[in-house]
Every structure is written in structure tokens, then in C-alpha cells.
């Protein structure tokens, strides 16, 4: 059964389904996939020295899906690949997967770069917030200002993705 490339859900995430989806999409191209990279974000038992008990994820669902689409468009201008992203919301326990990303590309360098870019950009612009419950209290985690048009943030994500080099100019859009 086809699954959406971009989704937020309160259900458990299915990595295999995502891998099958991007692999099948990539196989439909003239040059099929040679590498599939996945990223799974996992709820960690420790953050900033605190013992974490659980996380509650809140999101603005339609804009989160729009953010993933936007990131997908950014990726498509830089790396030939097929991409899928599912993010979970609600209460997550230690060890649960909070986000899964799958990227299929003819070549591994592009797949690695695109996958890293996607998680960095999700952390920059996806309208999703962690409410951390730790031993002794709770706190809203606040990271990046969610400005999707901040070119500095986009360049920083690109540099992490490709490892140190400056971002070349790409067509606007």
C-alpha cells in the first residue's frame, strides 16, 4: 500500500515502509538507486545532563507537512534522490523513534548529504516542539528560530551536509 512521502502521525513509525517507498520511486527513474540512507531520531535518556523520562511532541501538522515538502524541494535542487520523512507527535518513551528519514540515490555521496541536510533543516524549520519531562521537572525545548527563509540557516545545513565547504549558488525557488 503506498504511503505518503511526508507525514506527521501519532502512530509508531515504520522505517521499512519508508525504505520501500523511496527505493521504488528511485527505481522508476532511468538510473535506479545504488544507495539508500536512513536516519532515525531516537528519544534519548539524557539531555544537557538531565535524566529524561519522556518527551511530548507537539506540532502544527499542516505546516509540518508543508515544511517537509519545502525541504524536499530544497534537496531536489541540489542532489538527485528520492526522499521521505515521517515525524511522530504525542508522548514518546525513551528509545522510541521520533523521526525517520529515507533517501535513495544512484550514488552514496548524494544520499548521505541529502539525508544529513534533511534532518538539519527539520530541526531548523519544522513547526514541532519537544516538551521534555526529566527527573525534577519539565521544560519546553527551544532550538532554532523557525524562519524558513533564513538563508544563513540553509547554508549552515548545507555545510553540515557536505562537510565544511561553502554552499554554491543554486537557482532560487
Amino acid at each position, binding site marked *: 500500500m503506498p504511503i505518503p512521502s511526508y507525514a506527521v502521525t501519532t502512530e509508531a513509525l515504520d522505517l521499512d515502509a519508508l525504505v520501500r517507498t523511496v527505493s521504488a520511486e528511485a527505481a522508476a527513474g532511468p538510473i535506479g538507486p545504488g544507495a539508500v540512507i536512513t536516519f532515525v531520531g531516537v528519544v534519548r535518556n539524557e539531555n544537557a545532563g538531565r535524566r529524561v523520562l519522556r518527551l511530548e511532541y507537539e506540532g502544527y501538522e499542516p505546516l509540518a507537512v508543508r515544511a517537509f515538502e519545502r525541504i524536499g524541494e530544497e534537496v531536489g535542487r541540489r542532489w538527485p534522490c528520492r526522499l521521505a520523512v515521517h515525524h511522530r507527535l504525542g508522548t514518546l518513551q525513551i528509545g522510541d523513534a521520533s523521526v525517520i528519514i529515507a533517501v535513495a540515490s544512484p550514488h552514496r555521496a548524494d544520499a548521505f548529504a541529502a539525508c544529513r541536510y534533511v534532518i538539519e533543516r527539520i530541526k531548523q524549520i519544522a513547526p*514541532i516542539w519537544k516538551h521534555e519531562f526529566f527527573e525534577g521537572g519539565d521544560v519546553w525545548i527551544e532550538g532554532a528560530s523557525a524562519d524558513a527563509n533564513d538563508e544563513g540557516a540553509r547554508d549552515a545545513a548545507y555545510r553540515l551536509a557536505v562537510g565544511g565547504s561553502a554552499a554554491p549558488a543554486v537557482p532560487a525557488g
Partner: protein
Amino acid sequence: MRINVRLFARLRDIAGAGEVPTDVPDGATVRAVWDTLTGEFPEMRVYQDSISAAVNADYSRMDAALADGDEVAFLPPVSGG
């Protein structure tokens, strides 16, 4: 005109609600709505420089003008992933 304000995370906690139907003057901008909100909830002013906004579930500039029935979301710094 009447718009719907959506609030998330700590903004929602401060306001005590995730949705706040609000009457604003015709042609009000997103920033004007934010200023009204922070006037009512001064605690929100810590987000003055880090706030982002969306209108009808797409990213928006703060100087965008609103229309009747719009949904305006204020996004504190995000922490997904």
C-alpha cells in the same frame, strides 16, 4: 474582521489556549496581531526577536496583511527531530 490565532508550545501554555479567535481591524498585519497578543500576555515578549509566523498553514512574513477568516500561527523556536 475575525481571524483565528494558533499558539504552540510555551506560547500556548502562557495564553492557556491553543486557539484564540480574535477581532482585528481590516488589513491588520501579522505583526499587529503579535503586538496585540504580547500586550495582553507580556510574558510572550521574550520571543520578540525569535518569533516566526504562518498564515493559513504556510510560512509568512510578519508584515503580511491579513484577511477575514485567516488562521495566523505564531511559532516559537522549534525543536523537532
